[in-house]
């Protein structure tokens, strides 16, 4: 069963004060997310990621279309007991402590009283907030609030978790912890749907990604498939800082980084390059086919969409 099926959701806002005019925030969107996968929803700022998430959470009403979450209509309140949501730049009742906030959200999510304290303590431990669980949230830093947000999203053991820009406001260590947490959630059999514009996070974590720009879906697929396009080039890495002239003669683009050299050259020059390095008695570290990075794929899709838009206008 698909965890999320988005069937033509679209959203048009009316903007302007006197003369209202339509502004389309989301073109009809069709998307399926399978159970148990980490799905990345990528796009630049203002692409429509948050609008999509808000529609799925019932915070914004779509102009048209429908969706199914965990096999039910997305508007079914029972569905919400099985999903967790971390909004972008979350803000909570700052007069509460982290423990009180999670206890309150546990009540609203229907976590039974006898399990609630245990669950609250468990998630606070999981996000590293145990030591400050009695401090009012108004004294929390941005990173601490983000951790609180993650804690409230997973408090009730949801089957499906939506994270909107989960790495926002976190330091490198915090980002690493969130990545680990998402992988743990996947290992627990949960589905993770997260939006981001940080492509390295998506490439490291996601099974599949979708790219959205100006409210329109531009591409979707497994990260491996999107990045597996071999460009007819190979990447050769060797020890040292020396760049033999024979390598340059083969048309290699060489970059010295620290005590290694990275060279990119046509695939048909691969054997000649190995021979050249052997002749110079240089230690070869790696030779791999050059693949498209997620970033390159992302940029290509965005440029393509801009070109298409330019032609249309």
């Amino acid at each position, binding site marked *: 069963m698909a965890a999320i099926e988005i069937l033509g959701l679209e959203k048009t806002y009316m903007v302007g004060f006197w003369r209202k005019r339509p502004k389309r925030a989301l073109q009809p969107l069709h998307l399926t997310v399978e159970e148990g996968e980490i799905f990345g929803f990528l796009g630049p700022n203002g692409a429509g990621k948050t609008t999509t998430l808000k529609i799925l959470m019932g915070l914004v009403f779509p102009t048209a279309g429908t969706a199914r979450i965990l096999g039910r209509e997305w508007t079914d309140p029972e569905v*919400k007991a099985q999903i967790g949501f971390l909004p972008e730049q979350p803000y909570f009742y700052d007069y509460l402590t982290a423990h009180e906030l999670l206890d309150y959200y546990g009540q*609203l999510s229907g976590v039974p009283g006898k399990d609630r304290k245990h669950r609250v303590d468990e998630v606070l431990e999981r996000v590293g907030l145990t030591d400050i669980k009695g401090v009012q949230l108004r004294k929390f830093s941005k990173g601490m609030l983000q951790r609180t947000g993650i804690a409230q999203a997973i408090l009730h053991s949801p089957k499906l978790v939506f994270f909107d820009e989960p790495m926002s406001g976190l330091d490198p260590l915090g980002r690493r912890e969130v990545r680990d947490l998402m992988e743990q959630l996947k290992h627990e059999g949960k589905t993770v749907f997260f939006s981001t514009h940080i492509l390295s996070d998506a490439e490291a974590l996601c099974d599949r990604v979708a790219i959205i720009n100006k409210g329109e879906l531009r591409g979707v697929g497994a990260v491996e498939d999107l990045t597996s396009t071999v460009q007819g080039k190979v990447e050769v890495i060797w020890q040292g800082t020396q760049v033999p002239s024979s390598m340059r003669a083969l048309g290699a683009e060489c970059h010295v980084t620290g005590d290694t050299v990275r060279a990119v050259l046509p695939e048909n020059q691969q054997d000649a390059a190995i021979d050249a390095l052997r002749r110079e008695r240089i230690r070869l570290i790696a030779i791999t086919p050059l693949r498209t990075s997620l970033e390159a794929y992302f940029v290509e899709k965005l440029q393509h969409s801009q070109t298409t838009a330019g032609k249309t206008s």
Partner: protein
Amino acid sequence: MSPRILHIARNTFREAVRDRVLYNLIAFTLLLSGAAILVGQISFDIERLVVINLGLTAVSMFGVVIAIFIGIGLVSKEIEKRTLYTVLSRPVRRWEFIVGKFFGLAGTLVVNTFCMAIGVFGALFYVAHKFTRPDALILVALYFIVLEFLIICSLALLFSSFSSPLLSAVFAFSLFVIGSFADDLRGFAGLTHGFTRWFATGAAYLVPNFSALNVITAVAHEQGPSPQLILQNTLYALFYTAMALSGAVLIFERRNLK
């Protein structure tokens, strides 16, 4: 009642307490103590009248200010600060949120009124040195004041569900003032003709009739309202509150939380 409504109400009450709303009781206590001491020294035979009038009017005014200024932010503040997102993404229906917020604020006002009532009776005992049977009528006046709060809370919530806090405050306060003169408005309607009569009559029946809920002067003069008026006012306040809350729910159910 849904347990979620109770949880939301309890949290709203907790917010009011933590935001030091009940600190108004200190101001109230100081006002009443000062008035009781002053009246005891300068007046003759009207201490009871002054203390009841002043005490109940203060209970009403303090409560109205709290009801308006907390009520107008109950929904709009949650939208503005986006605290609503993590509530409505749970199995909480929008109407449960509105009703829970209403009960939370109403609960705060009932507790506040209860504490103030103790103060009023304390001041009364200080100036009169005893309680008499007509003093029980003060309880009826307090009951009417609570009914007044219910209406104001629901109106503040109604305005809060679609407009900014500033506009909500203006709307709610204006309605409170007009509603306090609802009887005069009806009298004025009776003196006019044509369109003005229709308009004034419609407005008089549309605005909440707070003047019917104000029995402070009568109670101070030991004249209690009839059981029929108590029943009428109760039904009127509950009906008006239910209508205003239904309006708030209808608007909020359709609102996009951008």
